[in-house]
Structure formats: C-alpha cells, structure tokens
C-alpha cells in the first residue's frame, strides 16, 4: 500500500505553487478555486434549484429526462503540471534496509505534489517511465483525479534499463504539446548530453521544467570501506569488484561533477534543479523546495 499521508502537507497548506511564467490561459495570481462555477470545462450535472440562472439549464437533458438539470463547470486552472516519475531499475536502490528506495521516495514526493496541486485546483498529470512510457494520465484538476494518480503510482514497480532522453523526446514531441509544468523525478543516471538535449526539447515546447534529483545518501557519500562487488540494478549481468576505499575519491569526484554539470546546464536552460535525499523526510524536502519556489516568485 502506498504510504501517503496527506497530513504531511497540512503545515504547508498556506504555501502555494506560484507559476513563474504564463503557461497557458491567464495568470490569476493566486490559484484558488473553491467553487465550481462557470468555467470552460464541464464537470457534472446537478438538479436545478430555484435561484440558478436559467441559461445554465441543460435543455438537452431536459428533453431527454423531463427534469431540469444545471450544467456545472470546473473553473479552468492556470497551471497544468506533468509529473514524470522515473521507474527504471536504478530507482530501486535503497541504501539501507529501513530506508525508502529512491522510487518509493519519488512516489511519496509525486503523490504529495499531486495532492497539493489538486487541492489548489491545479491540473496534474502523471507519466511513468522505465524502458518506455508506461502510463500517461493527462492532467486534470478534479479532486477525484488524485485517486487515479495515486493508484497508478502505487502500481508502478521499478525495473529495466532506461535511456531517459529518448523518452523525454518522445513525450515532448507527442504527449506534452500544451505547455505546462513538467516535474521530473529521477536519479538522472544517463548520458548528460542526451539529457540536456531532451530538456532543450521540453523547453522548446515552452514547458517549465523542474528536475527533482532523487538520490540516496549512500550515492552521495559513498561510505563503503570493504571490498565490494557492485551489481547493476538495471543490467544485472554487469558486476564490478571494487576496492571501495581506494575508489571513493574518484567516485565522489565523478558523481559531484555529474551533478554539477547537470545543475549548471539545467540552469542555463532555466530549468529548476533540486536534490532530494531519501533520508530526508518527504515533507521537509518538499517544504524546502516550495519555500524556495515561493521566494523565487
């Protein structure tokens, strides 16, 4: 069962996701749509009650049912967000037995963001990827949409070898035509140049892109001291026997360089980049991120 506790975000209820740029539609400033009203998107029918405007009566329904129904519309949001969750094998890594795997952590973060955005009546979609695009849930702002997002997240198991960049290209070219916010939750263990090109593609589509770099503390610190055989989570046949103490410097240097390059090159593309450690509480990590977004706004 997915461990998602909406109460985690209660304390950030006041925080709002502020768009940095116009995505689509118009900027209303603070997104708050507590009422179903006269928007462009039909939501549901309800029985006419005295006081309702006559023009909202669905006459077609009256003709079919001989009862008066009023059409309700969702207020159209000013933000359309896509959550891209990496479900590749590398995301299955967990540093210690008690810790969350990177994928579980990404699930928690994605669920939290979805809940919060839907609570603000923003539209949220979900795309899960491994060797290919596994699931695409188009963005919707309906509260009922949350269940679908969460169920899809829950059903997703990490596995397989991933080359993320081609999938991002595919998404940018075919599925994410309407500009919006693309939040990518991944460890980004791929060729950096390819990743940057894919980000360029997304940016070319005028998407606001946020990279949430999910990392285990062991990957950041490499605390191993014994001779260790590392088995690739994505390609299980690949094994490397490593004198960890001897290799640690090289590893940390390579890793830090990758992270720095990713951050720098993402920054140049005006892509937001944020590291999330799986040993940090999800709410805290998310809070820190949202606070930063708010300050930037």
């Amino acid at each position, binding site marked *: 069962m997915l461990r998602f506790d909406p109460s985690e975000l209660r304390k950030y209820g006041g925080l709002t996701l502020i768009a940095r740029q116009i995505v689509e539609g118009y900027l209303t400033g603070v997104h708050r749509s507590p009422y179903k009203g006269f928007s462009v998107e039909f939501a549901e029918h309800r029985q006419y009650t005295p006081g309702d405007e006559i023009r909202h009566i669905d006459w077609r329904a009256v003709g079919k049912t001989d009862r008066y129904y009023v059409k309700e519309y969702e207020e159209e949001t000013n933000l359309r967000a896509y959550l891209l969750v990496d479900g590749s094998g590398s995301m299955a890594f967990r540093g210690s037995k008690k810790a969350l795997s990177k994928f579980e952590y990404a699930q928690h973060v994605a669920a939290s963001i979805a809940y919060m955005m839907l609570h603000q009546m923003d539209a949220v979609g979900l795309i899960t990827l491994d060797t290919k695009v596994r699931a695409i849930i188009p963005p919707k702002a309906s509260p009922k949409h949350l269940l679908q997002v969460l169920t899809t997240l829950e059903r997703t198991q990490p596995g397989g070898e991933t080359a993320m960049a081609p999938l991002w290209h595919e998404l940018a070219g075919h599925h994410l035509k309407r500009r919006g916010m693309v939040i990518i939750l991944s*460890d980004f*263990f791929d060729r950096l140049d390819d990743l940057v090109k894919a980000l360029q593609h997304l940016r070319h589509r005028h998407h606001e892109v946020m990279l949430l770099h999910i990392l285990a503390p062991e990957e950041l610190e490499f605390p191993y001291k*014994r*001779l260790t*055989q590392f088995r690739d*989570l994505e390609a299980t046949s*690949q094994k*490397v026997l490593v004198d960890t103490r001897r*290799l640690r410097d090289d590893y940390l240097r390579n890793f830090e360089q*990758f992270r720095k390059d990713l951050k720098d090159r993402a920054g140049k593309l005006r892509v937001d980049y944020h590291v999330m450690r799986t040993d940090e509480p999800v709410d805290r990590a998310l809070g820190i991120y949202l606070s930063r977004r708010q300050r930037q706004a």
Partner: protein
Amino acid sequence: MGFLAPALLAGLVALAIPPIVHLLNRRRFDVLDWAAMQFLQVSERTRKKVFLEHFLLMLMRMGLIALLVLGIASPWIRLPWLAKIAPPPNRDMVLILDGSFSMGYTKDGRSAHDAAKDWAADLVRQLQVGDSVAVIHAKQQPTALVGYLSTDLDQVRGAMMDAPKPRGGVNMAAAVREAILLLKASGKGRRDIVILTDGQRHGWADPKSLERWELLAGGTPQGDVPNLWVVNVVPDRGADLPNWSLSPIQSSRAVAAVGREVKFKTELQLSGTAGQKPPDKVRIEVDGRPAGDQRPPTIADKGRIPLSFTQRFSTPGSHLVTVTIDEDAMPGDNRQDYAVEVMPTIPVLVVDGDPRNARSRGADFLRDALAPALDTNPSFLLRIVPASEFSPDLLTRPLGRDVATAPRVVVLMNIPTIRPDQGQAIEAFLTNGGGVLVTLGPRVEASGYNEEHFRDGRGWLPARLIDAIGDESDLEKAPRPVASSLECPALELFKNDEPGSFAHSAYFPRHWKLETRAEAGGVPIALLGNRNPLFVEKGFGKGRVILSAVPLDNGWRTNLTDLGDYVRLVHELMYYLAAAKGGDVNLEAKQPIVFRPSDGELPGPVTVHPPEGPVRRISVKEWPLVYDDTRETGVYKLTTDTGKVQYYVVQPDGGESNLSPCSEEDRLAVSRLLRTTQYVLTPTDVLSKEVDPETQIEFWWLLLALVIALLAFEVWMTRRIAGAK
C-alpha cells in the same frame, strides 16, 4: 654464510601467508545492488596504480616475514668489514667452578674456592646485557648451580656466592660435557666455557683425567666444543706444598658379628715437600664417640705412614668408624669414614650333598669352622640340611627365633644336581642381594649345572664345569693356590705365603676344571698353580656367588681342613658373601643408597642427614628406600622413626690431597685433546679477545634493522593507501 639455527628456516613457509591473505581477501567481499554504476569507472592508470600498490605491499609483507625468519635463524657470515662494524656479539657462557676439596686449601685466610668465586663475580660484572650464563659446580658428579643459560646476571652472581664448600673429588670432563650440552642449544655466535680451578694436576691431567678428556674429545665433534678458557685462580700457590692427609679406610669386612674383632687400615700420606713433621695424633671415633688415639711416628718414611687398628662392636646395627687428624690448610682430607654393618650372628644355610648322616660328612667341617659346638656365642648361625630337603622356602624362613635370621649366605656343598625349582629359588635369593657359595666335589654332575644354571653365561653359575681333574694319589703334583692371584677383598688376608698358610701349604690333588668367559661375568679370584681357577666370583642381581673348584672339606685328599687358615678362609668368605645383602654401605659418588631394614620394620618416614645441606625427611611406603642424591662425599645418616640408624659413606677422591700443579706438558696434553683450550689469568683475557676476521659474524641485527625500516615503510604505505581511500 650459514645459520646457527638452520631448522628455524622452516619458518619461511610463512612467506605464503601474505599472498594467501591477499587471495582470501579477494574472495571475501560484500555484494551490493547499485544504481550509480557509471561513476565506478576508474581510469586504467588508477587501476594499474592500485594494483601496483597492492602488489608492492604484498611483496613488502613477504619481505618482512622473510627477513624476520632469516634473522631468527641467526645468520652468520665471514666478512672482515662486517666484523669491524658489528656490535660485540652476545655470548653464552658456562662457568665451571672446581668444587673438589683441593679448592679448600687456605692461604692467608682465603681459599682457592673463595678466589674462584671472586674471579667469576668480576667476570660476570664485565659481561654485557644480553649475555647469558650458567654455572656448574664440578665435583665427582657435576652439580648445576644455575642449570640453564640465564640472562639474570644478579642471579648468577648470587648462585656462585652461595656455592657449597668444596669437598670430594672432581670429574672435570663430566662438567665440561654438561657445559657443552648446555651450550649446544645456544643460538649465539660466541660460546664460552670458563673453568675456574686451582691448577692442580690431579683432576686435570692425571692419567685418569686424561683418559676422561680423551673420551670426551672422542665423543664430541671438534666443532661442537666452544671456547674453553681455563683459569688458575691461585697462580701464586707454591709448586710443592706439603699436605698431610688420610687415605680412605679399608676393612676386609663390610659385615661383622657382634663382639668380633674387625681390623681397619688407613694411611697418613704426605704430599709435596718431604720431611714434614706428621700430625701429633690420629683420633679414632665410632659412631661419633672417641674410640682411642694413635700417635704416628715423628718421621715419615717416604711420606706414607700405615695405620691399622681393630675394633669390636658390642651392639648390632650400622656403625660408623671415623679417623681424623688436626685441621691444617686443607681441611677436606683430614677425615675418613667407614660404615660397618654389625650383626648378632650371620645366618648361613648349608645344603649338603652328602646323603650320609654321619660325622664324617663334608658340611661338618664348615660347622666346626663357623659355629663350633663349644662356642657358646658363635658368629654364625648355621643350619645344615640335606640336598633332598632343600626347599625354596628355606631361603626366606628365619633360621632362628629372630625374624632377622633369614639366611644371608647359602652354601651348596657338593650337591650332585640342583633341581630347577631350587635353581630358581637361588636365583631369586641372589637377585635380592644374597650370597651363595657353591663347592664342587666328586658327587657333582656337570651337565645339570651347565645346562640349568650356567646357561652359556646367562645363569647365575659363574663358570662352566668341564671335568674333575687331577690324581688323588699323586700329592707331589697337586697344585697349590697362587698367592698373587688372590684378588678378592675376602682373600686379602691370605696373600701371605709363609709356610703353613693357605697360599703356601694348601694343595688340591684333584679339583674341577672350570671354564670362565668374560661375557659370562665370572671372574677368577683365586688360581691354582696349574692356572686353573680355584674360586670364580660373579655378581648376580644385587648378590654375589662364588664357585669353588674344590668341595672345601677334606675330600680328594686335600690338606685344606688341616690348615689353620681353613677357619679364617671360610669365615672371610662368609663375611664377604654376607655383605652382599643390603648392598654396599661404602659408596662411590652418585651411587644410590638402597636402604631396607633387616629386622622387618614396617615402612615409614626416614630422616636423611646428608654431609652437606639441609636434613631431608622422606616418607617411605614400601622398602627399599632408594636415595640417589649422593653427589656429596661424606657420611649420610639415615634414621627411621623407630630409632634405627643406618650409616652410608660416599668415599672421597684421595688424589685431591696431592696439590702438585700442572706442568706445561700437562696443560698441552689437554690442549691437544680439546683444541679450543686456552689458559688465561684475568677476565679481560676472556672478554677482550678481538673478533677474528675469519670468525663467523652474526648479522641478525642487520636484518632486524631492515625489518624495522621495512615495517615503518609498510605502516607508512598502508596508512597512505588507507588515507588515499
């Protein structure tokens, strides 16, 4: 180049440890499912560097082990330049302190023994840290004062200062052998034996000592003999010092009967300058109580004054006869002791082969000689049984009312054959220390004796019986005893061949021809004029047996029983054979004391008063008590809780009284046998000898320095690699 302890090179197998550990470590690793594989790639250069570092580290550890093992095996090399820079090698040293009583000769209040201890203390003081020393007190049997190579030089000094006073003789070759054995396990390059003696010829280069040196040199490879430094600690002692001493007491009887006269002999001997005035008097003591004095003549003839005295013992038991003269510069030879066992009567069982029950049978001659009917208090308790009635239990059953009258001597007199069961009983009797006299006469059947009891020398009979030879009718050709052939102490009295004596007048027209063989153990102790043995003796078990070629009666027309010496002869033979029971009481050094009370006393505690050292109390659960710590010469007094006293005397070496020093030829004689022998005077002579360039120089210290350097480098490298990690 070589190794002092090459066996330790087996430790080189430990060289396999680093590669094995390395390989095992390569097989022991954690397994981790990992995501960030792309960052684990290291450059080929780094990989080669890591491999090289690990390989070097492994080689270094192997080198460490190799150097350590080589160092422990004590390598040596002959390199003159190394000899110059090498620190003085440590040495193992055995100090041999001459403990003979000549070392007690005192001049100006200081004995040679004191001088030796001071000399040794001075030497030990100059030794360096790491040198080790053992100390042996050389006596007739060497005694270890520090029985192992000790690096605790204070302990060594203390042990030397506490060395017992000198007494007894010395077997220096035995002490050197002990020292060689101690040094054999030494791993050090310098091994020294330092002998501290008084330069006396006796004990160093007298014929017996030279024989011992020769045996030692023959049995020891020259390479195994360490440096042998010989120090005369009293070089200024005069060459011809006068010294009066007493020679060991002698007596024909170690067993005597109560009230019977026993004769003792000793000598006052003068060694050194002739014409010295002998001591005023010689004191005689029995059991520590004065028993009379003797005044020797004031002028000694040839430096020897024979002394003899007789003594009667009124009580049975063990008695100690002591002769002393006044104390002089050498106190060790002014006293002599002799232990005598005195019995109420000596029980003798006579088994007579004459079936006649008449006055004329042969055993009656023995009865008349040993226990005459008119003698109310005879020395011997005699029982005569016919051969047919001789049963084994007679050898253990008391002959009288007293339990202590079990036979001491059995006489098998002219018995035709000795049955196997009788033979086995006699064998057991001899094994337990009994005395047996076998007389051969016309009734004896040789085949039975030879097959059952001689058994080609393996039986108890001393000689093979060939045949009875001689003509009873021809008295003119009858052979007579040869006086010079009388070798046994029991026959000492009969060497005099004056008319009427045994050696001069006894004749034996017919006798048994006996064949003796060296390997059979039988020794002729009296020969007849025709070179045939008259008496043959053999030790068997703890006892002894004498085989007589004649019946010791008046058979075969001998005149033996008509001679006055007949009675004395059978008395002496009986005393001699009776003394076998219970073993000797006058012992050689290191000969163990075997004590078994003859009166049937139950086992219990026995107190031993040795001549030197503390009294020892020994709990005895079963007789006999065997006490083997008899290396000190002098009197050992054993006392049971019932008050029974038994004396034992370990005889000293009389030659020690002669203080004549070694000549140059004497010293060379020993040097020729033991090539490493050098005569020195001061400790510096021993210690300051420069290292010969051709000497084997140990360089384990060089390897140790390399080990330390390599170890430091290994630690540095390990830390560097670990730090790099």
